């Protein structure tokens, strides 16, 4: 940041946004009340797969307080929801993209599929009326498992996707991989399931839509991570409206984790219906609806192989994955198990050749899309489970096998399409081992053994590609839009600054981090910086927040706008100080003529910019308000090592997370407190996946068996320990902040670290494989199974 940072960069500045949240003054979507507001309720399918023969809504339409009932056939002129990423298959053909209707059109394809929209004067009335709608279903057989869906004879879900296949896609040199395996001294093979997760942001999704007859415009409040993307997709692709006629506001948003990136049917139907009933309409999902209708995460079935030479050097990797898309293609679903997955299979290692083949299938389940980490946790899980197992097979210490294969020369072009700009994987491994007190592990293990407990240690040296995305690369890979970010810095006449960012904060603390950058760069008080986000009516443009991109991409757009502000300020100062522009220095909030004490404060320049008496009108426009767009030239590559230590009670199968240490390299850090918080949260989500969480659909009926917090095990305060977190810094080489992003690392590293620890502990009792989550039931069963004489043969 240079000399103007005023000591703010790298400081744990307490968050500007906290007071409103701590006093109940935050404004989330369900807190918004329009005058004359009505309420929506969505009638959802109770069946996983059925034809709709007939819908009789006469009673509901006549029920007390009901304004309207809409079904699929009412939505004339409304298109299906689009998918933003085209994957081209190994057959050279585009993926199968069946329609994704806003309300069911003649068929339902998962439990929770929306069938009808009821609008009433109160939420209770809408719900009561919906119960009277008579839907005549012809129930069809259902399939929920992504592998089963591809088998001959599986129920056919979409006419447009024969065999329920979305695509088979591949990356890497298959022939070279086959040749390397043929020469290998050792091959490690594993099969694994990356368990399906339900994101569960604590604020359920919601929306409130209002139509204004005067100018035929709409306003939509929605719990969403990227309001401009929401607006573009909804207007241009689904409703056929000019985008200027829809203002999308994503106010305070109670967590996203990916699940609020997407354009969903509910808010689309609300916008459409708000004109039909000519009243504002509000909808808030209850948690049961969220379980059924939020896009889920993960759900991979994978076979993976690693070829090694006699010294444990990796020669080649082969990965075959089946991925579940759910019933419909959600907004970014297709790129998650491909572009954001296979490209990360090099990990931190010099594996020279890698081949990955992914088949994506449709099933009678909720759509699956990005969830914190999105493809990268799945890749890390494959790589780090393979590496762990290879070390066990070849009797090489876990840290040693990693060191023998680390990439140490940068930039480094991987065999799976990425070029890492920088990193220091030894540094994060060394530090994580110190933090985890690996040296003391044998003593702790012996102590556990004395008490009849099993103790295990697991490593995950992960890498992720963040800062989405260099648009030309994304476009070449199938993205239907570039992934720029925009920032506007408006200097107000009295010298305060309002920043309009296309990034969206739903817990990440942008109002503080971005304000630190602005205050440091302009040399002004952080209290004079306001950050505005989440409103297409105020922010010029934006692609939103996901993929740990906000600081690296959104922050850089702000820095570029700040550079323009300073450049213009210098011109104004030169005029006022009657000096050459090249002689003006800007430092600590002052424009000074070099080598003199003649200067103008920042606020003097801002005032002169807006209400000048003396201004070079012929050469320079008044005003001090600059916008910049930034398109990154490469992804960023956060990386690190996470080490987990577990203790298992073989009598009960209960796994206790004894210690967790994470050393990450996020590049330069603006606010360490916020970064640590992001790691804590990500780790807890990763440990949730490994220890507790599992989305289960009944294989026969397609019913969601884990449809409430009574059945879906969320991590609670007493499931996780306090974490040890630390960082090492290699600045990103291609953005001016040197930042890489920190939002997803925890969720990427933790599952592999923990499951490696579980496998390490259970190896003592002969357990070879256990899938996530390592619940007491599963662990106990695995121990019993391994103890059987047949298992020991």
């Amino acid at each position, binding site marked *: 940041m240079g000399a103007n940072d005023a000591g703010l960069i790298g400081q744990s500045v307490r968050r500007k946004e906290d007071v409103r949240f701590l006093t109940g003054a935050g404004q989330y979507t369900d807190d918004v009340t329009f005058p004359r507001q009505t309420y929506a309720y969505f009638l959802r399918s109770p069946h996983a797969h059925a034809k709709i023969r007939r819908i009789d809504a006469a009673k509901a339409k006549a029920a007390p307080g009901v304004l309207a009932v809409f079904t699929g056939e009412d939505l004339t002129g409304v298109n299906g929801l689009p998918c933003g990423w085209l994957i081209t298959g190994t057959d050279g053909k585009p993926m199968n993209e069946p329609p994704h209707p806003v309300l069911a059109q003649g068929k339902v394809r998962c439990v929770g599929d929306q069938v009808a929209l009821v609008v009433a004067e109160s939420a209770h009335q809408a719900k009561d009326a919906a119960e009277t709608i008579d839907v005549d279903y012809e129930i069809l057989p259902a399939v929920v498992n992504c592998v089963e869906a591809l088998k001959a004879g599986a129920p056919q879900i979409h006419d447009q996707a024969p065999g329920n296949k979305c695509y088979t896609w591949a990356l890497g040199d298959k022939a070279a991989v086959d040749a390397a395996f043929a020469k290998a001294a050792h091959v490690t093979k594993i099969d694994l399931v990356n368990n399906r997760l339900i994101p569960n942001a604590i*604020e359920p999704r919601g929306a409130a839509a209002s139509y204004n007859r005067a100018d035929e415009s709409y306003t939509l409040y929605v719990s969403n991570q990227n309001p401009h993307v929401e607006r573009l997709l909804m207007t241009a692709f689904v409703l056929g409206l000019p985008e200027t006629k829809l203002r999308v506001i994503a106010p305070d948003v109670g967590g996203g984790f990916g699940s609020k990136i997407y354009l969903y049917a509910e808010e689309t139907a609300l916008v459409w219906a708000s004109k039909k009933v000519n009243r504002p309409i509000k909808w808030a999902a209850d*948690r049961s609806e969220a379980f059924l209708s939020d896009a889920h995460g993960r759900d991979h079935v994978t076979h993976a192989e690693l070829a090694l030479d006699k010294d444990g050097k990796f020669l080649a990797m082969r990965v075959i994955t089946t991925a579940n898309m759910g019933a419909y293609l959600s907004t970014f679903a297709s790129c998650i198990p491909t572009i954001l997955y296979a490209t990360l299979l090099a990990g931190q290692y010099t594996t020279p050749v890698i081949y990955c083949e992914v088949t994506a299938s449709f099933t009678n389940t909720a759509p699956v899309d990005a969830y914190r980490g999105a493809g990268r946790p799945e890749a890390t899980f494959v790589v780090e489970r393979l590496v762990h197992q290879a070390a066990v097979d070849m009797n090489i210490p876990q840290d040693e096998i990693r060191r023998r294969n680390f990439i140490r020369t940068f930039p480094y072009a991987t065999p799976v399409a990425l070029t890492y700009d920088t990193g220091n994987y030894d540094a994060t491994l060394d530090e994580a081992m110190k933090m985890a007190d690996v040296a003391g592990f044998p003593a702790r293990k012996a102590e556990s053994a004395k008490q009849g407990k099993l103790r295990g240690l697991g490593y995950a040296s992960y890498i992720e590609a963040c800062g989405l995305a260099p648009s030309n690369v994304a476009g070449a890979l199938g993205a239907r839009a570039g992934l720029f970010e925009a920032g506007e810095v408006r200097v107000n006449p009295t010298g305060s600054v309002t920043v309009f960012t296309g990034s969206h904060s739903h817990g990440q603390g942008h109002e503080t981090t971005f304000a630190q950058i602005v205050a440091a760069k302009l040399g002004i008080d952080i209290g004079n910086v306001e950050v505005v986000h989440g409103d297409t009516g105020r922010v010029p443009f934006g692609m939103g927040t996901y993929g740990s991109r906000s600081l690296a991409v959104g922050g850089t757009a702000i820095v570029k706008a700040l550079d323009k502000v300073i450049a213009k300020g210098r011109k104004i100062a030169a005029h006022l100080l009657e000096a050459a522009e090249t002689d003006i220095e800007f430092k600590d909030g002052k424009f000074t003529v070099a080598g003199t004490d003649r200067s103008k404060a920042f606020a003097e320049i801002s005032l002169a910019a807006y209400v000048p008496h003396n201004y070079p009108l012929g050469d320079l426009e008044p005003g001090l308000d600059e916008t910049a767009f930034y398109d990154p030239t490469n992804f960023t590559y956060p990386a690190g090592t996470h080490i987990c230590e577990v203790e298992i009670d073989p009598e009960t199968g209960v796994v206790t997370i004894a210690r967790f240490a994470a050393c990450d390299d996020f590049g330069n850090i603006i606010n360490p407190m916020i970064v640590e918080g992001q790691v*804590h949260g990500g780790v807890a989500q990763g440990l949730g996946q490994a220890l507790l969480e599992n989305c289960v659909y009944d294989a026969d009926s397609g019913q969601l068996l884990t449809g409430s917090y009574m059945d879906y095990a969320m991590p609670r305060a*007493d499931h996780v320990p306090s974490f040890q977190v630390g960082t090492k810094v290699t600045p990103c080489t291609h953005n001016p902040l040197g930042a890489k992003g920190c939002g997803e690392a925890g969720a990427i590293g933790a599952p592999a670290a923990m499951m490696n620890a579980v496998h390490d502990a259970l190896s003592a009792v002969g357990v070879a494989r256990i899938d996530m989550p390592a619940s007491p039931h599963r662990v106990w069963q695995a121990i019993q199974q391994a103890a059987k004489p047949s298992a020991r043969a």
Partner: protein
Amino acid sequence: MSVQLSLTVNGKAVSAAVDARTLLVELLRNQLALTGTHVGCDTGQCGACTVLLDGRAVKACNMLAAQAGGAKVLTIEGLAAADGTLHPMQAAFKDCHGLQCGFCTSGMVLSAIDLVQRHPNADEKTIREELEGNFCRCTGYHNIVRAVQQGAAAMAK
């Protein structure tokens, strides 16, 4: 069926006519516009709706408004001093970064106060066990535990 009830909310007397099935959280949010109390689930698990009822933490989604007749209800809006000075527990959550998206925060802070009133010297294990009924998806609980410890110390002063 409509029920007439009187109660005290954040120190102010409130009279309301509610549909008998109205939940306490619905009364607070919809009729009294106290939207700082949040609804995060429908099974009484997440704790986002926690308020203090006669000084005790309760889940406002898990009781009828009518059951709160005659009671003193404290919501997050009534916690800070009239001049805006934060309650020590609110201040501790800010200082320890015990919140991110803010959605669980009001329930978490009120549960924490109840916890400290019952266990003034709670250790980490007790704090974690006592917070079982409040979900946070953002913080991993690490900084919440720190905040409760710091808030407890400040409340003891």
